[in-house]
């Protein structure tokens, strides 16, 4: 199993450009998440999905969009790149809760380092 795979690993964008960060997982996990990591700020949730066709906003969704057409893929779209979106982006996935509906560990990809100049 490859786990969670993110592409590209690095990208430089100009202000106003758009791009899609790709995320795919091969663990058949229902839940998928997008986080951004900024120095000294921890990880902030951008969007999440509980299954194909279902997405919802996290803590910092402005400037981003997502879609979930399959269980495996959860792409993150930046429509009009801004310098404030310079960050490291992580995708994660987790299975459904266990017998008591308790949260399960999240598995992370290795991130996309995005610079917007």
């Amino acid at each position, binding site marked *: 199993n490859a786990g969670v795979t993110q592409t590209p690993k690095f990208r430089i964008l100009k202000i106003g450009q758009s791009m899609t960060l790709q995320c795919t997982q091969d663990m058949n996990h229902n839940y998928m998440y997008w986080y951004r990591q900024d120095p*000294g700020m*921890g*990880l902030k949730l951008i969007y999440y999905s509980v299954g194909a066709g279902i997405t*919802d906003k996290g803590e910092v969704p402005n400037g981003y969009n997502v879609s979930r057409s399959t269980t495996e893929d959860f792409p993150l779209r930046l429509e009009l790149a801004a310098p404030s979106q310079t960050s490291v982006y*992580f995708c994660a996935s987790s299975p459904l809760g266990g017998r008591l*509906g308790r*949260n399960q*560990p*999240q598995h*992370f990809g290795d991130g996309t380092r995005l610079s917007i100049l």
Partner: protein
Amino acid sequence: QQQVKQSPQSLIVQKGGISIINCAYENTAFDYFPWYQQFPGKGPALLIAIRPDVSEKKEGRFTISFNKSAKQFSLHIMDSQPGDSATYFCAASWSGNTGKLIFGQGTTLQVKP
């Protein structure tokens, strides 16, 4: 109320010493407290996690201590090794919230040989 506060921001420990990282939370609905370890250029990886029905959990050299009344939990790394040098994140979540994690700000640990 959704915040998880982590300290210290950075930590330097001698090889063989004990590393201690602390986290505090406000939301009493949290019932899952994982710690993640992140090496440079990599994504976070689950290290150890605890639920509030126990006060301590140990896995090898890593121990979580949990104080429900104080709403605090901490990671102890015994016999710290240079290979433990990484960034550590505490997090919290609650059942039924679709697994969303609230992360602390992170602690960069350096273990000197």
